[in-house]
């Protein structure tokens, strides 16, 4: 064989090894979730008995459906409120010049870098004072604050990219600020809103530390902590466990696929350019 075929064989082997390394755990999760017979580890390498029973069982057992609903409420509230607040903030930063503008920008960046561990104690005590432990609202408040910095930074780039002349044209046509915002600015920054919403969504859906410390009542848990409890209670129900893990992951995949094009471009260009 020529060296050329050898390189291409090598490349194929490398790509296959690579995909095995990254995909196999996920494949295993899916095949176990869809398999009716899953007594032990190797049974599901090749699923033999296709079924959706595991999903319906996992969803109705204990409070798992409730965890999904709680997480959906928390996540949607976080995305909507932080999106609205960030949109307003981004307009102010991108369009208006005022004193302390750069101070505020730096302040926002600092918020982004604070780890949860540095805030969890006073926030826990505060929520306890307000009797908001075990309330989804308490969690939503914290998540909004954590998703705002990235949302504002990201959105203000999109707002700044809209030419001012467009806004001025709208004013000349007799629009007020609100009308201009709704009919000119907002439609043009929709891609930015999609990307920021996807980030807030994933953050709120996957957050663990605050959910673990704030929530203790079983019917109030969100998916991260809930999934953990579920695993503890059903150690032997392999199909159910993997079905539950799959259900928790599906929303993230859906959001990613929906936002992928904008997200991919934004992620790469924003990081290094």
């Amino acid at each position: 064989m020529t060296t050329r075929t050898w390189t291409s064989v090598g490349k194929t082997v490398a790509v296959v090894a690579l995909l095995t390394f990254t995909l196999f755990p996920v494949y295993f999760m899916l095949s176990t979730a869809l398999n009716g017979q899953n007594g032990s580890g190797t049974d599901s390498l090749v699923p033999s008995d296709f079924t959706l029973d595991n999903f319906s069982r996992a969803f109705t057992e204990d409070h798992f459906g409730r965890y999904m609903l709680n997480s959906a409420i928390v996540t949607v509230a976080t995305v909507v409120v932080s999106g609205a607040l960030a949109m307003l903030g981004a307009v102010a930063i991108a369009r208006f010049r005022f004193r302390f503008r750069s101070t505020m920008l730096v302040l926002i960046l600092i918020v982004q870098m604070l780890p949860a561990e540095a805030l969890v104690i006073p926030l826990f005590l505060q929520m306890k004072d307000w009797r908001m432990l075990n309330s989804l609202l308490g969690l939503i408040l914290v998540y909004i604050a954590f998703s705002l910095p990235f949302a504002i930074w990201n959105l203000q780039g999109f707002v700044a990219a809209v030419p001012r002349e467009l806004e001025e044209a709208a004013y000349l046509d007799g629009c007020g600020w609100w009308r201009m915002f709704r009919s000119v600015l907002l439609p043009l920054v929709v891609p930015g809103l999609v990307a920021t919403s996807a980030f807030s969504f994933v953050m709120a859906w996957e957050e663990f530390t605050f959910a673990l410390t704030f929530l203790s009542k079983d019917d109030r848990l969100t998916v991260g902590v809930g999934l953990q409890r579920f695993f503890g209670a059903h150690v032997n129900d392999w199909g159910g466990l993997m079905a539950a893990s799959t259900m928790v992951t599906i929303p993230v995949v859906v959001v990613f696929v929906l936002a992928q094009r904008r997200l991919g471009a934004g992620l790469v260009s924003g990081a290094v350019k």
Partner: protein
Amino acid sequence: MSADTSAAAVTKDSGVDPDKSTSLAKAGAWARRAPLLPALIFMIVVTQLPFVATIVISFMNWNAYYPKDRSFAGLDNFKTVLTDVNAREAIIVTVLLTVGVVLISLVLGLAIALLLDRKFKGRSVARTLMITPFLIVPVAAALLWKHALYNAQYGLFNGVLKFVFGDSAPQPDWISDHPLIAVMFSLVWQWTPFMMLILLAGLQSRPMDVVEAARIDGASGWQIFTNMTLPHLRQYIELSGLLGAIYIVQNFDAVFTITSGGLGTANLPYYIYQTFYSAHDYGTASAAGVIVVIGTIIIATFALRTVLSLFREESR
């Protein structure tokens, strides 16, 4: 003086007649700021004030079990964190975990990026599939590794060992034999795609004409890699490594899920959780939190410097 210039700037900006009273200009300035205020106030109340509170608590004796003994403690809590055996161990584990995960996933990410930078059939599909581990919810990934892969009786690893080597195959208990490595490996699996994405972006921004020229001059693949590709990628490697480090220093869910902080895998975030949630020692836990922040700031400063130097490179 700055007040004057800003007022002037405001009047000029808004097109208001400069002869009008300054109070109008001031009102205008506030109207400009107003849209930002809700978000700003929200962030200050929910993140900045608690952070100040954490710093204050870190200088206090405050244990919920002894509510009457609340007092100023000076630097005692910090002394405790830096001398206590568990806390010191937690610091060492944090460093080991962060360095280990970042280095291994960087090397793997680089190898994968180099591979996916070459042309082959189905390359774009392979690229998309590679991101999958990043999409799995971290807790679900940790549970998957713990129960489906590492488990000694029904786990996939031991199942495969049995399948390949027969009934006499070794059946190690992965998590209790190598707890830290088990945690590390699940994190490497999750973080490699992230490193790969940034490094791939770096590879694609490489000026190919220069590489072609080097090849024509007779440079070998290895020479091109060490003398051209690596130096070009240096900043991208630094950036992805530092960004990854910021997150992995703070990692809590993997440690909590896979080992519950046992078997010598408790890192600083876990130590904080334990000190605060189980021992109710708010003072010591806050001091440990402040130390995590200082560590994060140190890493973040380097990260920012790298980002800035990338900016400069672009504008040159």
